[in-house]
């Protein structure tokens, strides 16, 4: 049995204090200096340890506060209040919410699964990935050692073309050479985020993280400079239409390359495969209205890996702007199933993969593996202020973050995600992530439930008048 795949996480302290969800207002005028808040009340000694954060110009008390409200209740002059922190609320945007950002920071710091307190006060369904419920019915008796004490659950996936059947000659020898496969130990590929300060440094981190995880990092070819060449085995260059050059010196060193979809992409792929037979070629297809047919066509024409990409908020592109990525993945997957060629091709999905559960859910919808981009930037304490897009100064000084430290934070995040994937698989009673692909029997789609079960249940019967209030 091969050695268990294990991601080595190590705590990497944040360089900037994470913003608290709530904040303390403690008026100094009229304070009795009774020091009850300092000496008696605060169980985490936040009042004693507080300091002024010079870079963020804030009081560090908020990051220590655990919202016990003892100081608020105990102040004899009632000078202490708690309020929601507007700076926390302003993090990110409507998709990359403050909760997602701070959860990512926690995982990148500790490499641990984020666990919240008892009880869940939130809604049970929402839009997008939240409209997909997974079956966790096999959570029966967790082992004492948690996920690592269980029987081995494999998270490996194969990238490449798979033959639909094998053929042997009279001597029992294979009649053809099977196409090359690239096995990655977790169903996650890394990609260069669409924004970010100090990008050359960030690419180094991506490459090192990919090396440490045993996966690949995707980046545009023109960004892969000389310094990155030692990491070439863990990089996959992306070529824009017409930019692929067979003489490119990086090609003999990499194991995979990606081509943007265009009219001549199949010829480019053929040329690449002829020159470098062991190279795995990805084709990156936009998740728009034509994606379903395009993925089917490419698969029939012999594509090895198709990378379906949506927007950074997990939406479709072009005419599918209103559709969620999960539905578009499902469409392409089901089309390939109907065409009886699903197993021939590897389907990757990217865009808006923000949380560990999105990995499992995208795989349930039919992807073989997913590509993470923005979460890797968030793992470096990014606040998605988007200042870098206008050449503004980076508030977290990414240009000063040591490469090793940044790479370890990315590894920590992926480690936490992989552990959550193991938890999901364990709770589903599955031993392998390959089995999770397209396993919609393990999931419920809220939209479908509404339509199939709740709508007929609550629809007014024929001839029955609608009930009015007060009747």
């Amino acid at each position, binding site marked *: 049995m091969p050695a268990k795949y294990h991601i080595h996480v190590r705590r990497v302290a944040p360089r900037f204090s994470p913003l608290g969800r709530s*904040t303390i*207002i403690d*008026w*100094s*005028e009229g304070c009795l200096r009774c020091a009850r808040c300092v000496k008696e009340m605060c169980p985490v000694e936040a009042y004693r340890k507080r300091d*002024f954060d*010079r870079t963020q*110009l*804030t*009081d560090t008390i908020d990051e220590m506060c655990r919202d016990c409200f003892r100081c608020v209740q105990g102040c004899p002059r009632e000078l202490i*209040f708690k*309020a*929601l*922190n*507007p*700076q926390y609320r*302003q993090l990110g945007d409507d998709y990359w919410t403050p909760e997602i950002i701070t959860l990512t920071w926690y995982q990148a710091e500790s490499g641990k699964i984020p666990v919240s307190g008892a009880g869940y006060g939130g809604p049970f369904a929402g839009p997008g990935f939240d409209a997909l419920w997974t079956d966790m019915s096999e959570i029966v008796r967790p082992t004492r050692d948690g996920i690592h004490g269980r029987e081995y659950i494999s998270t490996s996936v194969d990238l490449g073309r798979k033959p639909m059947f094998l053929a042997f000659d009279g001597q029992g020898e294979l009649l053809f050479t099977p196409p090359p496969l690239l096995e990655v130990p977790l169903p996650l590929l890394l990609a260069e985020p669409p924004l970010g300060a100090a990008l050359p440094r960030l690419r180094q981190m991506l490459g090192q993280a990919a090396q440490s995880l045993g996966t690949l990092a995707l980046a545009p070819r023109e960004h892969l400079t000389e310094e990155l060449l030692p990491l070439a085995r863990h990089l996959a260059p992306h070529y824009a239409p017409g930019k692929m050059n067979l003489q490119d010196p990086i090609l003999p060193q990499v194991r995979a390359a990606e081509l943007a979809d265009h009219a001549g992409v199949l010829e480019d792929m053929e040329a690449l495969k002829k020159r470098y037979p062991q190279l795995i070629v990805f084709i990156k297809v936009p998740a728009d209205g034509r994606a379903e047919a395009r993925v089917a066509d490419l698969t029939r024409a012999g594509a090895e890996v198709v990378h379906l990409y949506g927007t950074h908020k997990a939406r479709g592109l072009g005419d599918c702007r209103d559709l969620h990525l999960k539905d578009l993945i499902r469409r392409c997957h089901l089309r390939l199933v109907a065409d009886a060629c699903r197993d021939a091709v590897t389907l990757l999905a990217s865009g808006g993969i923000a949380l560990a559960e999105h990995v499992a859910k995208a795989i349930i919808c039919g992807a073989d593996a997913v590509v993470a981009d923005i979460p890797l930037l968030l793992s470096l304490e990014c606040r998605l202020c988007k200042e870098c897009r206008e050449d503004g*100064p980076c508030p977290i000084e990414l240009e000063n973050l040591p490469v090793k430290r940044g790479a370890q934070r990315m590894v920590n995040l992926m480690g936490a995600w992989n552990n959550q994937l193991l938890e999901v698989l364990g709770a589903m009673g599955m031993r392998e992530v390959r089995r999770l692909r397209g396993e919609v029997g393990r999931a419920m789609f809220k939209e479908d439930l509404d339509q199939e079960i709740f709508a007929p249940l609550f629809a007014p019967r024929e001839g029955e008048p609608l009930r009015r209030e007060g009747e």
Partner: protein
Amino acid sequence: MDMEVVVFACQQAVADPEALRSLWGRNPARLRLLSEPCSSKVEAFQLLRTLAEAADLVWVIGCVEEQCRYQEGSSRMGGRVRYTQRYLEEIGLEPDRLGRTVVTPGHPEDLAAAVAEIKARLKKLGPSPLKKKE
């Protein structure tokens, strides 16, 4: 080095920080806007430290005192700003490097006037002498 203005803004007074940023526009001085639950969250020592560290001008935008969500917050902040200005004067620094405007929540013309005042003050004062040493 570019000049920098740090604005501590009460979230009731400046409900939409983007609107304030667009009012600031393409001014060569950098605007750093920090939203606070109430302007009185900021203590006198924080104003002083901010002036010492980063800013050429520190400004507080709060609500008119009768409309403060925390009843006394805005008036306390007024007193605190005056105290800090006196303190700056005593130690021989320009008290004008710290300013405060109160606005009526939901009145964009008040915010525009506040931004105009900040711009005028910054123009008058120029770069902070504390930053020249770097």
